[in-house]
């Protein structure tokens, strides 16, 4: 069955203008990558119907969700979505259990929804069920939000950096669960992340966003490989002088040649920040540690 997602139109934002002409078949899970401020979250919000000012059209599976004249043609609550926002957004004044119950009661199809027990087990939530939403850590919030999004039995899953606040162990565990569960459930997925290894494991096609526009689109593994190559080339082309080091935080500040404005190197990752005005390799290059790149 085809899961065609068509988005055509634009939305003005303070830092960029989202300008899209997308037509993708979500039978293959879609990843979205791009520098901070490239418009990834805004794109998900457009799909979710949370940007009424978007002037254009959003269509999913042949159903027009939004067009310029009728922005709320199919309102958010009728789109059958499962959404995880970066910050979790749990319902205040409720325990984890009641947050999950809120989603369960609104499940589109109780039979199709994932088993509650299996989900709370897989997402390591059983010990948190009686905790109020307000006391949870960022990672715990994200896991509850993910469970909530899966419990509604969505026909389209939109995940925005859903694992970013979790520790490495939980991240691996969740990626493994999603990588196994999503293809079996057959739910179309749009997955936003900075982490190449998450995108490599969970998506089959990728869109690279740059300042609100699609700068590249293709198979995930091909685009990630091309990106790694570009980063390697850039690393070779850029020579750096260590300006200062901080042994306590395992960081060093480097002065780079060309138009790069700075870099911070830590045990976790290397971030090369280039001058935004420079039209060379892009606004920012983010490199994961070697052991995490598969």
């Amino acid at each position: 069955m085809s899961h065609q997602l068509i988005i055509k139109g634009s939305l003005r934002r303070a830092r960029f203008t989202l300008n899209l002409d997308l037509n993708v078949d979500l039978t293959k899970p879609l990843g979205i990558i791009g520098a901070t401020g490239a418009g990834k979250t805004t794109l998900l919000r457009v799909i979710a119907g949370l940007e009424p000012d978007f002037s254009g059209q959003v269509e999913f599976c042949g159903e027009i969700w939004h067009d310029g004249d009728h922005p709320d043609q199919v309102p958010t609550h009728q789109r059958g979505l499962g959404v995880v926002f970066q910050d979790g957004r749990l319902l205040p004044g409720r325990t984890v259990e009641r947050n999950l119950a809120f989603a369960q009661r609104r499940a589109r199809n109780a039979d199709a929804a994932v088993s509650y027990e299996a989900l709370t087990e897989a997402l390591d939530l059983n010990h948190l069920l009686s905790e109020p939403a307000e006391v949870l850590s960022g990672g715990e919030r994200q896991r509850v939000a993910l469970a909530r999004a899966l419990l509604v039995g969505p026909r389209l899953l939109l995940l925005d950096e859903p694992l970013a606040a979790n520790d490495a162990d939980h991240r691996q565990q969740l990626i493994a669960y999603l990588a196994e569960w999503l293809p079996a459930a057959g739910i179309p997925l749009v997955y936003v992340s900075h982490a190449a290894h998450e995108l490599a494991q969970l998506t089959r096609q990728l869109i690279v966003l740059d300042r609100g526009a699609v700068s590249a689109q293709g198979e995930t593994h091909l685009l990630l490989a091309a990106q790694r190559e570009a980063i390697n080339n850039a690393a070779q082309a850029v020579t750096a002088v260590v300006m200062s080091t901080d042994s306590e935080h395992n960081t060093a500040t480097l002065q780079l040649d060309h138009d790069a404005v700075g870099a911070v190197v830590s045990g976790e990752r290397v971030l090369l920040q280039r001058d935004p005005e420079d039209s060379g390799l892009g606004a920012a290059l983010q490199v994961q540690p070697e052991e995490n790149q598969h």
Partner: protein
Amino acid sequence: MSGDLQAVWLTALLAATTTLLLVPLASLVAWWLARSTSSSRSIIEAVVAMPLVLPPTVLGFYLLIMLNPESAVGSLWVELTGESLTFSFSGLVIASIIYSLPFMVQPLQAAFRAVPESVLEAAATLGASPRDRWLNVVLPVAKRGYLTGCVLTFAHTVGEFGVVLMMGGNIPGETRVLSIAIYEHVETLNYDAAHVLALGLLGFSFLCLWLVYRYAGHRFEVIRG
């Protein structure tokens, strides 16, 4: 029924009617104030808060001007109902609604602000319709705000004097509420009767404020009057 008992009954009826009518009206105003980014929001906020700082006699005076049978609103009311808004229970209810508006709006506004737009968006993505979001996301968080607003509005209406005197005068069974009855007892040097009513109001006011601080204390800080 004795004159004082009649005043107690009339006061309770006025306070209950005002509170009940203000719940939906103030909910709409408070929701708009809590959510709007319009530049006119601060103007509306100031208008709503006016009774907190305005001398009640001033408010009563203007209401008398605006609602008397010779005015546009007052004459329309006479045409529709056959009775005058001034020196009547209906007029007192309208005056009380305006006078107590900030006591209901402000706690509700604070309560509604405690539900961020982002949470309502998340609820929408989970399939909650606007009505569902209001009933099951906003209302549970705002219930303390409603408790505070209702108790304060009721208590404030019970204690009204200046506005009532200007709009309603002192008509037994129609506009002679508790505060007017106390004033009348003092004027006629009937201090014993004044003591009974005043002490009753003192105890009632304390009970109301204790309820608010005990059960909804952290929602009360928004009242500046």
